[in-house]
């Protein structure tokens, strides 16, 4: 019955024996007890289950855990490394980009992937990138603000080492 897999989750190697039909989202939530990744639908629409697979957003309800063998999975729990909030988390709080919190982990991870690709996304870029993540509470306005705010913070932080390097040279 069980197929052995080893998945690196939030930097830690996790091994288990799982049924092939076990969805990645259930592996994360039930086997690993990382319940920050949520389930909101059964037709791959809502995006509440979004995680990063080797840095790319995927809907973990539409992948089997066995497919993630040998790969890296990042969930929301990885964001506040060492206790400090990631700029995306701080921005969601600062800009009131969440209400019930159920879509929030997926929203933040998809946003992070966007910011990897586009350092200065426009409102349109953000809305387009997030069109696979449904929110029922916020009406998206403050989510867009949060992503822009996080972009600004992350760009400013990236500029500091660059400035320091320039100053040294």
């Amino acid at each position, binding site marked *: 019955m069980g*197929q052995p897999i080893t998945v690196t989750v939030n930097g830690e190697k996790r091994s288990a024996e799982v*049924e*092939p*039909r076990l*969805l990645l989202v259930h592996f994360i939530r039930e086997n690993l007890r990382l319940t920050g990744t949520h389930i909101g639908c*059964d*037709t*791959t*629409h809502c*995006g509440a289950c*979004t995680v990063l697979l080797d840095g*790319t*957003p*995927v*809907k973990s*309800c*539409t*992948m*089997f855990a*066995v*497919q993630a*063998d040998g790969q890296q999975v990042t969930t929301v729990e990885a964001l506040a490394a060492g206790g400090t909030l990631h700029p995306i988390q701080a921005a969601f709080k600062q800009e009131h980009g969440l209400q019930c919190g159920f879509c929030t982990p997926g929203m933040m991870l*998809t946003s992070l992937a966007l910011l990897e690709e586009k350092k200065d996304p426009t409102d349109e870029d953000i809305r*387009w*990138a*997030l*069109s*696979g*993540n449904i929110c029922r509470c916020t009406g998206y306005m403050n989510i867009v603000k949060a992503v822009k705010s996080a972009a600004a913070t992350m760009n400013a932080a990236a500029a500091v080492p660059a400035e320091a390097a320039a100053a040294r040279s």
Partner: protein
Amino acid sequence: MLPAPFEYHAPRTIDEALDLLDQYGDDGKVLAGGQSLIPLLKLRFASPGHLVDINKIKDLDFFEERDGTLRIGPLFRHKSAERSSLLASRYHVMADAAPMIADPIIRNRGTIAGSVAHADPSGDWGTVLLAMDADLVLRSKRGSRTVKARDFFSGPFSTALEPTEILSEIRIPAAKAMTGGAYLKLERKVGDFATVAVAVHLRMDDGKVGSAGIGLTAVGPQNLKAEKAEASLKGVRLDDAAIKQAAALAAEAADPKADQRGSVDYKRNVVRVFTERGLKRASERARGGG
């Protein structure tokens, strides 16, 4: 929301994969992006006994223009098409279609080949390949064969692909100068299937239409090729009258069903309107504009 049990195989080479498909026949299914297959498994609309996951096989994501052909491999994902500057500059119909597949997260996993093999009549890529007169390479343990896109689709979720075969390559005639295309899709929201979509691919020849490809999504039992409309354009100047006529013929070629997305008349009209708009846009792009 939970699939029936199955056995899972993750071959490392294409030959291994083809062996497995040969062994399991129609109890086996290829797993590429999985964004169409896995939802079906979860709802138990399909329960193959064996899944053959090809994601661990190297070099199946090829995408290159070589010797007059654009060659696309089975693991080339929608997102890669969306990001491709090659498609944006010269394969407009594909560049238009890519960002409209499903939603951005699904596009990270889903593949063009998988979508084509799945053959949902509301799927977009099949229509695009029909408009571009693509060839599909079907490979089994016994060898490869090439099928024209127009001969590939035979009904809803029904294609020439045998259970023992993989769609191993999509071959599109390289876009020469003076080609232009467009894909217009009406969807009720991002992530919904098309209500109607039209693919147009034009090659202009000295101010006249050299060849025209027109494909239709979601208005028939499969992706359709509007052959009469295409023929009406061959060798003519693309003026308003020619465009109107081709659009009318495309609407006639459509065979939509009435449903929550609209009536038969409505869908036919959108085919007509989109064909007109698509031809205009394609011709602008062929001239180097848009």
